[in-house]
């Protein structure tokens, strides 16, 4: 039986521990070290989980778009797998960002969904767009075309995100202070440390989960090709999958 170490590799183990440590430290700092923010009071603490989630989600989508461009240029299925995993991962983080965002809205403005908060609204639109990535992949049979069309979608959606932010920001005249852009650096000392630690922790978490999923997809691909070589039909998980099929080189 291949030991877990070989299947997942030592680096992944270290990465996981690092992610847990830094994220834990970030949240601890946020809870105990960072002062209560004068204007929004205690509810500002959600800021330390909501904003890193949002930022990491956006970076994930951008990374998905970039590896999609690489796939279109090179045709190497590994890029397609990276793009697929990155977008799949970012979608989950986006759900997290939306839920914590609505909790934040409830905490500081009293109702679950606030249409005045442009970033929150833009995230909802981006989520609705990227949620179609999976159905799109699933509805194309030919694996090679599936990868190509998914890559085109990832590039188009990647370019859409910034425009969407501009459009929504234009639509909502800002009336209340937006803590998000304060992350640009004018946060007081302690808060900034807590925020950046949580941000780094969240990024590490994303990379860890990303590599976990890549490893498991590779393993599944290798298993499938071993089975095919054995001419085994009994327990092969047939049927169409939206995940890219990579033939292990």
């Amino acid at each position, binding site marked *: 039986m291949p030991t877990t170490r070989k299947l997942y590799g030592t680096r992944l183990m270290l990465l996981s521990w690092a992610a847990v440590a830094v994220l834990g430290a970030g949240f601890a700092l946020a809870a105990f070290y960072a002062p209560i923010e004068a204007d929004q009071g205690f509810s500002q603490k959600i800021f330390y989980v909501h904003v890193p989630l949002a930022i990491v989600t956006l970076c994930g989508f951008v990374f998905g778009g970039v590896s999609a461009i690489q796939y279109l240029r090179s045709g190497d299925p590994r890029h397609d797998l990276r793009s697929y995993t990155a977008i799949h991962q970012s979608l989950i983080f986006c759900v997290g960002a939306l839920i914590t965002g609505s909790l934040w809205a409830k905490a500081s403005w009293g109702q679950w969904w606030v249409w005045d908060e442009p970033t929150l609204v833009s995230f909802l639109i981006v989520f609705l767009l990227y949620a179609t990535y999976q159905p799109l992949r699933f509805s194309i049979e030919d694996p090679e075309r599936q990868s190509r069309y998914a890559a085109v979608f990832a590039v188009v959606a990647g370019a859409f995100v910034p425009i969407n932010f501009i459009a929504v920001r234009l639509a909502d005249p800002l009336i209340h202070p937006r803590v998000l852009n304060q992350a640009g650096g004018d946060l007081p000392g302690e808060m900034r440390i807590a925020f950046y630690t949580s941000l780094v922790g969240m990024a590490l978490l994303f990379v860890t989960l990303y590599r*976990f999923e890549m490893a498991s997809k590779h*393993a*599944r691909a290798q298993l499938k090709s071993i089975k095919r070589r*054995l001419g085994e039909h009994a327990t092969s998980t047939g049927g169409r999958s939206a995940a890219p099929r990579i033939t292990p080189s």
Partner: protein
Amino acid sequence: MTDKLPENGGYVAAAYLVFLALLLIYVAIMATRAGRLERELGDVLDIVQRDGAGEPGAGRQATGGSGPAEQRAPRGSEQ
């Protein structure tokens, strides 16, 4: 943090809990997927061991060879 949590403190806790829950669900899904993977690997390994003694790579005969494969099977099942 000695004073009582302010009235909307509950939501802050909820936010962190939701994040944690999301993480745990994701890890759980990954775990089941890894489990299924290992089970399939186990099956494949049995097959390789069972017909490893027979002619290499040809389709498996249902009856299995009478010779060495038979002796190896019991030991294989002990693992």
